[in-house]
């Protein structure tokens, strides 16, 4: 396992009126983040919030190319990114104990925080297709280039780690500075991750290690 300190590229926020960041995703232009009763579109170029959608947003956030998915209480809402309208909901696999959310390969991937699990879920029905065990409390989940990464957060200690999707084995780990939390994780498709900073109400961009 490769282990190193996370390289923080940039910090966004905290933002006025936003107490905490609960989930993060990226639509190719904006970083969307969940702040309790809103989904906010942050422009990573200028660090400003371009628009917000009024919708319950308590945990993970994901984007499938057209729709935003947002966990609220014990369900996953499917939201039209253009209009902000909630198109439908499915039950969340952790019945409310859910935290991270990602979209990849036609499935939703949902972190179940205290159970230290990641579920692969059918986005139409909410059926659990399979479950990956992690070693730490799971917060954010993301897929990039066939790699499964997730954030962990236990008692003011956080890291971002790549795990083997078959076995759950940790392959690589990026430690965040002590006292920071990771709530929400999303890759920008390139060499960066966006992480939610939990109760600090900020979003951080960190470097994804290059493959040699």
């Amino acid at each position: 396992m490769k282990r190193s300190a996370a390289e923080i590229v940039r910090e966004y926020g905290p933002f006025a009126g936003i107490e905490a960041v609960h989930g993060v995703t990226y639509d190719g232009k904006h970083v969307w983040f969940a702040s309790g009763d809103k989904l906010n579109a942050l422009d990573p170029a200028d660090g400003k919030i371009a628009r917000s959608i009024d919708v319950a947003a308590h945990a993970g956030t994901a984007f499938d190319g057209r729709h935003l998915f947002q966990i609220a209480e014990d369900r996953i809402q499917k939201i039209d990114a253009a209009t902000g309208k909630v198109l439908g909901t499915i039950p969340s696999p952790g019945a409310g104990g859910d935290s991270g959310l990602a979209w990849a390969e036609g499935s939703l991937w949902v972190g179940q925080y205290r159970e230290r699990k990641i579920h692969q879920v059918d986005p139409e029905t909410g059926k659990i297709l399979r479950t990956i065990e992690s070693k730490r409390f799971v917060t954010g989940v993301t897929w990039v280039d066939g790699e499964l990464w997730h954030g962990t957060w236990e008692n003011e200690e956080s890291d971002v780690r790549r795990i083997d999707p078959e076995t759950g084995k940790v392959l690589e780990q990026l430690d965040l500075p002590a006292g920071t939390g990771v709530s929400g994780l999303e890759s920008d498709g390139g060499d960066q991750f966006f992480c939610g900073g939990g109760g600090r109400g900020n979003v951080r961009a960190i470097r994804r290690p290059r493959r040699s």
Partner: protein
Amino acid sequence: MESLITAAARALEAGDPLGALNRIALRNDAPSLALRGIAMAQLGDLAKAKTLLRSAARAFGPREAVARARCVVAEAEIALVSRDLNWPMKALAAARATLEKHGDLANAAHAGHIEARRLLLLGRPDEAERTLAELGALILPPASQVVRELVVAGIAIRRLRTKEARAALGRAAGAAHLARIPALAAEVESASLVLDTPAARLIARGKERPLLLGEVEALAASKALVVDTFHYSVRNGGIFVSLGTRPVLFALARHLAQSWPADVSREALIAAAFRARHADESHRARLRVEMGRLRAKLKPLADVTATKQGFALTPHKTRDVLVLARPIEEKHAGILALLSDGEPWSSSALALALDTSARTVQRALDELARSSKVQFFGHGRARRWMTPPVPGFPTGLLLPAPLLKT
């Protein structure tokens, strides 16, 4: 954090404990137990709240020291509000240290405020002030600022510094407005009432009138000879004679002062000091002895002279004698004063705060209960005493918002 926990925590912060319970009522994981505990505390079931918070503290794993410490702080606050003053303060101090170590300064400050409030209730304003000073001048969230200023005001009120108290209460009201928690604003308002409600009575030349706290403060600078029934003392300027351990001498001094410049008959003094209805020769002899003792005690301040009828007071340096008395003279005024905060007290907490024996307090409470001046609920050690409730009295439980930040 987790979705439902976030939703429930937000409901709690918005002052909707039932909404929070709706979301997590059936869950028994550690964060749910903690939130259920806080919701129950807000709903007034402090016993249930305490049990839930204790289970939550146990359920959090060894890696979750911060969450565990927050539970301890919440439990300590519930103990304070239920006037369980014997609650282990060491655990609170340890929790405070943990929170400080992990950079959760807002909750660490909250823990410090709870310690200071307890010290204030126990009548130890100096230690309360030291505890506040240890916390330093942190920038706190508005709800915590309110608590801090309430403690500052409480210390100032106990030291009779009304200007300081008023300034602190003004800052508290401003912070309560920012915090947008109605219970906090109500608590500040009821604390402010203290300054505008008579705190004492002034008795001079056989007449009496109510005094506000500010007027009591002004009295400290007066040139008069003051017999102070709050501190069982007689003072004039810088000279201070304590009669706290001499109740008979104090009763005599007080009656002489109340009638001043007239004298008081032997019969009246015997009735007042010895609680004897008919004065016989042995009472007269005892009165002479006690008057001799009083004369010796008051020597720096006044003469006690015999008259045809009885005795009279002649102050040395002033032409004025005043008695500062409690607003309502009750036999058990001390207990009633503590209970007037509207919270349920255990008899042991009352004994601790009054620095007297539990037996004495128990006897007084039984007597007050017979005349319906106090009421109790619960049995055995769990029995709590309170004055008949005032409608809308706030619970004083301020824990929710600062506790829930992740």
